[in-house]
């Protein structure tokens, strides 16, 4: 419906975004610290990072709910300062946690949200989108966690948005509800919509996102497609092992000297993780090194490298550590 030129503009772009809380009381907390983003139309973009990294603050600034302390935000070529009303009609938002009115029915909640938009999808279509047709007459208070989350997304889809913002959409959901939600997001993206989501589940980011930005302490520390980021480790596999108690520890230098090993990480509990390009070459060498020392392997695992490994390599911390 927009002109060609407008379509070529990025869905979201922001430059030099900063958000400082409580600056007046002297104890300033920098939640977002100079963030640049460019999210293309039709892609699913993930902000990945531990709790407290500044993901929620960032999306809430993009959603026009929070004012940035500094920096510029443009959505679909428009800015919140100039086009608030027009822009709001074109985005859909599911906050990290919203408790919708418990004593309204699903249909009543959707009609409430529909009333805010000049043009909106009919209730029946929304219910079909999120597979809540059977629950149309049920009170929100009676829905399961997954159903509530799907209703929250239906509320975000009411105005047929161009951009859908989802803040931790699957936190606290069981695996089945999580997969149901993923399908929903992928369907929206399949229809040409842009998705911006935050998550601290790397599996979610790998499944859904075309590109991710890894955020830590309010900054982007790495950006790219999940595959690119993992490739950036220089190895697609991880070998994790632990020596039997009492065995003398292996030095990082010795491990890095093994064939096909590109990285080694020793953690305090004695676990050791090697990033490895060819496990078939690295494993025999590792076992040889251990038996040469007379140190028995207590645990041994090989797996594909994940975004978690990328995060740990970049920060030395795990995503869940916060």
């Amino acid at each position, binding site marked *: 419906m927009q002109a060609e030129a407008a379509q070529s503009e990025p869905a979201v772009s922001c430059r030099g975004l900063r958000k400082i809380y409580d600056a007046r009381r002297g104890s300033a907390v920098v939640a977002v610290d100079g963030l640049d983003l460019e999210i293309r139309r039709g892609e699913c973009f993930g902000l990945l990072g531990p709790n407290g990294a500044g993901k929620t603050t960032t999306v809430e600034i993009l*959603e*026009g*709910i*929070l004012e940035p302390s500094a920096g510029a935000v443009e959505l679909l070529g428009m800015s919140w300062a100039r086009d608030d*009303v027009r822009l*709001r*009609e074109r985005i859909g*938002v599911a*906050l990290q*946690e*919203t*408790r*919708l*009115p418990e*004593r*309204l029915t699903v249909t*009543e909640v959707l*009609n*409430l*949200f*529909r*009333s*805010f*938009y*000049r*043009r*909106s*999808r*009919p209730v029946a*279509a929304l219910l079909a989108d999120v597979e809540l047709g059977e629950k149309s007459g049920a*009170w929100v208070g009676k829905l399961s966690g997954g159903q509530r989350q799907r209703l929250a997304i239906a*509320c975000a889809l*009411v*105005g*047929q948005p161009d951009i859908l913002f989802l803040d931790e959409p699957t936190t606290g959901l069981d695996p089945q509800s999580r997969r149901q939600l993923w399908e929903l997001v992928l369907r929206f993206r399949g229809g040409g919509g842009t998705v911006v989501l935050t998550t601290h589940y790397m599996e979610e980011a790998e499944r859904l996102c075309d590109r991710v930005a890894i955020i830590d302490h309010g900054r982007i520390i790495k950006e790219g497609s999940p595959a690119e980021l993992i490739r950036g480790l220089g190895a697609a596999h991880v070998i994790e092992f632990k020596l039997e108690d009492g065995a003398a520890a292996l030095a990082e230098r010795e491990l890095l000297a093994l064939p096909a090993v590109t990285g080694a990480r020793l953690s305090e509990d004695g676990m050791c993780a090697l990033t490895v390009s060819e496990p078939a070459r690295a494993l025999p060498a590792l076992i040889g090194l251990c038996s040469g020392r007379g140190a028995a392997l207590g645990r041994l695992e090989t797996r594909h490298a994940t975004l978690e490994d990328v995060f740990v390599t970049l920060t030395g911390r795990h995503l869940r550590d916060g």
Partner: protein
Amino acid sequence: MAEERNARNHPVLQLTLMRLRELRREPGTLFWVFGFPILMSIALGLAFRSTGPEPIRVGVLPGVSAEVTGALTAGGVTVKVLDEGLARNELRAGRVAIVLVPPASGTGALGYRYDDKRPESRLGRAVVDDILQRAAGRHDPRAVQDELVRERGARYIDFLIPGLIGMNLMSGSMWGIGWVLVNMRVRKLLKRLLAAPMRRRHLMYAQALARLVMIPIEMVVILVFARLAFDVRMAGSWPALALVSVTGSASFAGLAILVASRAQNSETVSGLMNLVMLPMFVLSGVFFSSDHFPAFMQPAINALPLTALCNSLRAVIIDGAGIAGIAGSLAVMAIWGVISFVVGLRLFRWG
């Protein structure tokens, strides 16, 4: 696949419906809105019902002459013969208004023992003295004639019902708007609504509209009950009553928004609301006339919005006052409402 918005789907209508549906589906609120004031008026109406003048009870110590007790009994006074200790207790507890003490030897004067700070004791003394002096032969030189009237509107229940209505309008606005808004903030619903293209003012209009729907229902329920149970009648005009109720509610709606403007959880807002409301329950003449407070407090008490509301409700319901007669009170309420609304909206935190 999209539909244009139509009149049935106006945001103010949908937001109002949300509020009313939540109210209707929450049994607890229905009790506080309707049950509580009715129970209150039943309890207080029964406790302070007017059953004609109570007989005057007089304690008599041993040694008071039979002539005296005979005269009192004949004069319609209840006489109890009590010993010294018992007389003291009964007097303290108010079960006798006055105790007659036999004349000390020599003086010949009958003793009246009573507490002159108690109205019923002073009345007892006057009545007892009157009976005894007449029995002893006093002649009243001036001819008088009693003319008895039973004025409706003079009973305690007539005083109480407008007070309860005022209190109810205040609580309705404070809880129904202040608590509800804070609750929406705690649940992040305010933030979610702002993330949608909702106009902030529409949410406020909807709160006001929901109150406007509830006020007549609340008023009618209490007034009908008061009429049926206690024969409390409405002396004034319905438009005047409607104006007073709406102005009073608007005044407290403003206060509710002010109180709710910053609170981040429901405990804080409950505390703040009680801080605002409890002093007014006591000072503003809900249960007893605020005239009982010392004169220096009166200007402050009269400036309170609940005082203005209760006074104007009484003026309309009992005295049949017109709008001109309550203009001052209406102005007090309007000032409170406008100032607190403007300040509250400025301070209001959506996130």
